[in-house]
């Protein structure tokens, strides 16, 4: 049986991992390469690195981090943040990432998803989708871009389905309402999207306790769950989260 994946998310700014709440108040919490190595040793299933500076002149620092990460971990990892061209996708894949995550730039230019899927295969192209509750939208959720700062006219469910058609191989679904709260994932949003697309959906935003992962796998139908604060600050290890889930009948990779 396919295991539910636990994915650790690292936001990287100027070569350092940072963590904020609701996209704000970021503070440095460590070296991303050393953190990646530690999570690998703890048995993490996958990692995702977001370049949260994403400025042209700092791009080299981030690519260097990606290259060094690729040399020390032997599980898949994705990279995102400010990627706006197929050429930039190629850069991070050649630096050693398995997957590239596109978000705001894919909203502005949906051909980016199709172009990436055609060049590198759908399995390489992840759509990052930031959504917030909005009763005016058909699905009840609106897509936001630029780190949650800019509202779009897109309905979250419609955009997820369109991205799948364009060739996205996976969706990392981030709830802006839940992000950083540690009060649990947005189950309704996750179930809505994951139950509607046929590609894997990674739940993101709100994890604070292993029980939140159990909920999002069982009730939210998530294929994988992103964690950050609950492991970055040493509250839980990957092994503790997986043991908790295994004891409650969730299939996880625990060896």
């Amino acid at each position, binding site marked *: 049986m396919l295991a539910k994946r636990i994915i650790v998310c690292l936001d990287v700014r100027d070569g350092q991992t940072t963590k904020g709440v609701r996209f704000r108040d970021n503070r440095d919490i460590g070296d991303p390469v050393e953190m990646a190595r530690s999570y690998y040793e703890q048995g993490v299933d996958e990692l995702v690195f977001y370049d949260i500076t994403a400025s042209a002149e700092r791009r080299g620092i981030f690519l260097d981090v990606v290259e060094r990460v690729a040399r020390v971990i032997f599980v898949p990892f994705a990279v995102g943040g400010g990627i706006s061209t197929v050429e930039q996708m190629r850069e991070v894949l050649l630096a050693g990432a398995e997957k590239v995550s596109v978000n705001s730039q894919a909203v502005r230019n949906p051909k980016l998803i199709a172009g990436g899927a055609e060049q590198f295969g759908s399995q390489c192209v992840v759509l990052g989708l930031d959504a917030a509750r909005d009763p005016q939208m058909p699905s009840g959720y609106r897509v936001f871009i630029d780190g949650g700062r800019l509202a779009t006219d897109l309905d979250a469910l419609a955009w997820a389905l369109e991205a799948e058609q364009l060739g996205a191989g996976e969706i990392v679904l981030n709830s802006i309402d839940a992000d950083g709260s540690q009060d649990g994932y947005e189950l309704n949003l996750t179930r809505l999207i994951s139950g509607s697309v046929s590609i*894997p959906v990674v739940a993101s935003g709100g994890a604070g306790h292993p029980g939140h992962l159990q909920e999002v796998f069982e009730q939210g139908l998530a294929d994988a769950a992103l964690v950050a604060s609950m492991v970055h600050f040493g509250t839980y290890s990957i092994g503790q989260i997986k043991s908790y889930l295994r004891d409650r009948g969730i299939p996880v990779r625990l060896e």
Partner: protein
Amino acid sequence: MSADLVVVDYLAGNLRSVETALQHLGAGFKISGSPGEVAAAERLIVPGVGEARAAMEQLCESGLDQAIDGFWRAGRPLLGICLGCQIIFDRSEERSTHCLGFLGGAVRRFTPAPGRKVPHMGWNRVFFRRSHPLFSGIADGAFFYFVHSYYPKPAEAEVVIGECEYGPRFAAAVARDNLAACQFHPEKSAENGLKLLANFLSWKP
């Protein structure tokens, strides 16, 4: 560094993760798309992600299909990974592609079902069907990382050395004589995968 080990570059996806895993294991190797170098290798890895038709066209245009065929017939150890595990069969359902035909059988597409998404992406258990040097030191039912929408369906059951369950059971690893191949990605399967690669490097079929 010796080029006894060659990783075939036929433009089917990113070879970077295979490269870093082999470097981590301290293996000397060369990445090559040259039919001459492939034919002269002592040990061969055929990796690949992507689409079967494009991969076969690239192999045939470059003459690598003949080089890999000659290498295999000479009895030296060959490991296929992911797409490299599919193109060794007779044919693939993916755009009705004629493949290398080292093993009898076809490559089929997973049918999506409720709770079973396609691609099959993530960590799944591989259950051994028979012992093989590739699995030495690895536990039966160990997890490996998969990402694929198509899976091999060998004509002969005895070539299956490892099975995985995703809906129906499918062949996750196959072997015959000097040929071995896995549908999963050992280079991305943490310590189990590194062990399997190390086993291949010392395999004397």
